């Protein structure tokens, strides 16, 4: 009897291992489709963490789900005989606490490593973009003497890009350099969410939040408010445009000239 149980046990382990290996293989090929990999250094680290959590999740799901299905098939009622009335035991109950404890503590430690890793404070010389959320669009402000590389410390004035729900604004930032975002709001809470940053941070009245990222891929990325902010919350979208430094400088110069020309804050429409 004991040998039968053992054989059954090892077969179960074999099936479970095979199932989790299969899941891993499937995951390896599909991971990019499951979550976009992100376009910043920080996003890539967070995406790696996501994949680790996903592997844990799939293994746990395969093992527990497999055991559940196995138990339902193996132990379905066949006759009226009463099964052994087993109440539990100390050894298995220690395992019941120990296994989840090990998994959760491991995941906690790994996620804290990533958290520390992505939390680099901005250098004062980095480009700073002040983002103001309002019902229901965005303002992106560039201080002309705080533009990061090639910044002119004597330049004066601020360049403001202001959007509306129907004319979504474009947020332009240079690639391959750290950019600090300062987030403020004066009406309700909004949330600055760029999918390809794999990151969001709230804009909270009475509080200033900031974060720093280094983008590694140029292109246009869609983004929108992620915190319910009222009637047209879903229209509070913008486009993030990551460009080469030269293109960024040219864009700034062009916008600054325009702004000097008609003296009014600019509204730049998405193409």
């Amino acid at each position: 009897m004991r040998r039968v149980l053992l054989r059954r046990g090892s077969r179960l382990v074999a099936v479970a291992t095979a199932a989790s290996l299969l899941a891993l293989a499937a995951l390896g090929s599909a991971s990019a489709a499951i979550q976009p990999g992100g376009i910043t250094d920080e996003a890539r680290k967070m995406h790696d963490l996501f994949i680790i959590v996903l592997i844990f999740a799939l293994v746990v799901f395969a093992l527990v789900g497999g055991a559940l299905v196995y138990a339902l098939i193996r132990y379905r009622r066949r006759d009226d005989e009463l099964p052994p009335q087993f109440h539990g035991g100390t050894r298995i109950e220690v395992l019941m606490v120990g296994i989840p404890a090990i998994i959760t503590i491991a995941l906690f430690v790994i996620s804290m490593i990533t958290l520390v890793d992505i939390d680099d404070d901005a250098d004062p010389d980095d480009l700073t973009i002040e983002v103001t959320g309002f019902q229901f669009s965005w303002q992106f402000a560039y201080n002309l003497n705080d533009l990061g590389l090639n910044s002119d410390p004597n330049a004066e004035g601020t360049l403001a890009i202001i959007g509306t729900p129907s004319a979504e604004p474009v947020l332009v930032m240079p690639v391959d350099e750290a950019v600090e975002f300062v987030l403020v709001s004066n009406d309700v809470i909004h949330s600055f969410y760029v999918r390809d940053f794999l990151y969001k941070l709230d804009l909270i009245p009475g509080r200033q939040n900031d974060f720093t990222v280094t983008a590694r891929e140029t292109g246009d990325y869609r983004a929108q408010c992620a915190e319910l902010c009222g009637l047209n919350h879903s229209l509070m979208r913008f486009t993030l445009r990551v460009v080469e430094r030269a293109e960024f400088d040219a864009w700034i110069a062009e916008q600054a000239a325009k702004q000097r020309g008609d003296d009014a804050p600019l509204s730049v429409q998405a193409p």
Partner: protein
Amino acid sequence: MASVAIPQLSGYRRPAVLDWIMTVDHKKLGILYLYFTLFFFAVGGILALLVRTQLSVADSTFVGNDAYNQIFTMHASAMLFLFIIPVWAGFGNYFVPLQIGAADMAFPRINALSFWLLPPAGILMFSGFLVDGGSANAGWTAYSPLAQQAGVGMDMWIVAVFMLGASSTIGAANFLVTMFRMRAPGMTMFRMPIFCWTMLVTALLQLLATPVLAAALAMLFIDRNYGGSFFDPNGGGNVVLWQNVFWFYSHPAVYIMILPGMGIVSEILPVFSRKPLFGYKAFVFATIAIGALGFSVWAHHMFTTGSVLLPFFGFMTFMIGIPTGVKIFNWLGTLWGGSISFTTPMLFALGFVSMFLIGGINGTFSAAVPVDFALHDTYFVVAHIHYVLFGGSVFAVFAGLYYWFPKIWGRMLDERLGRLHFTFMFIGFNLAFFPMHMLGLDGMPRRIAVYSEDAGWETLNMISTLGAFTIAVSMIPFLIAVVWAFMRPQDQPDNPWEGNTLEWATSSPPPEHNFDSLPPVRSERPLFDARQNGDGH
């Protein structure tokens, strides 16, 4: 004075309606709770169908942005405050006294008050649709300052939730006293049925957490109407304070919404596996641990506010995974080596276990703080809460209804219709909510009324909407089964499932005084012991 004639009441009959309105009988109040909460489950479900219809296609114009914000706010408010939380009070009302062998709750009139606070609160909350500016529209979380901008419907919502909180709090006190003071002879705390244990921890959470919500609501009401500035930075207040106090209640509230469901499932799995619950004490301690840890994780709803001590709340959130994992082992161990019959209550209980497993696993993504930065406030989180509160709690509600229907009404629900109900609901549920994981990972924020076509979210949203309507269709066999059951005579045996706990030791339905006699209680399964001639344990 030799003898006093005691007036006989047996000949007197109140009109049935008055009888239901004036009753202090825990069973009748329990039934009233069930009717009330299932009504709002239907209302919340219809609102959910409106939400899903709106989102089924890109750039939808089915309902406007304004109406959409009201609809999803009231969907969540109905489901959480008027369905899930009070439905457990309904089951608890009916079954806690029966399971511990008591004649009624400790305070029957307070019990009636707990129930009768609900209908005016429900009416008040939904009357918001009739007033200028519409109903509450700031989400069920009512974040300030957005909640300051809403119309008078918001005030009606605040007062309604306040009343529901009062109902919860006094109900909780009643449950605690009942379980501490009125257990049958021989029923020690560790022989109490597991459903009672989960109700006990739930009641503790309600007693400790709900007053915090009441305080928060009072502050919000003052801010809105009397020029207060608790949450207004311009007056020296703090916007994030609302989130702290709101979630200090509302995270424990998530356990208030799921623990009794776990209790029901832990009643059903042993009965249909013909085994005791595996690791009864471990389950009890895990429930207590979840209750205790539940008070230290609230800020994991606020990871993206930038004003939260991330490592602490990340750690506590992972910690709560441990007792949750223990419970999964309890359920697996109960099935293991058992003799499992797939009755309808068992199917729903197994649906709970499997869907709650997913709801537990997809929750760990948000516990990993850097991963949550991407997932927070996206449809991934919507998937998570529905795997927990629908895949978990709602499946447990139906498990409980099918299991205890013969107890409450002395009639069985048809098994074939029950299986049909389960099949449609299980498939519909996964169709509706699994695609939301992918939508969230692809960046779809929650609570948006429209999305553009180039976002690429249309296909998954359409699948989700089809799933939602499949769930709605699954209610048809359930309703037929209920109507059919009531058309048949009350001729079922008192204990059709071979239940083990005291509620099955009396007739079905039970008499007004509950028990003519009680069997001896020597374990957590007194009826099992009785079937084994007293030496079953």
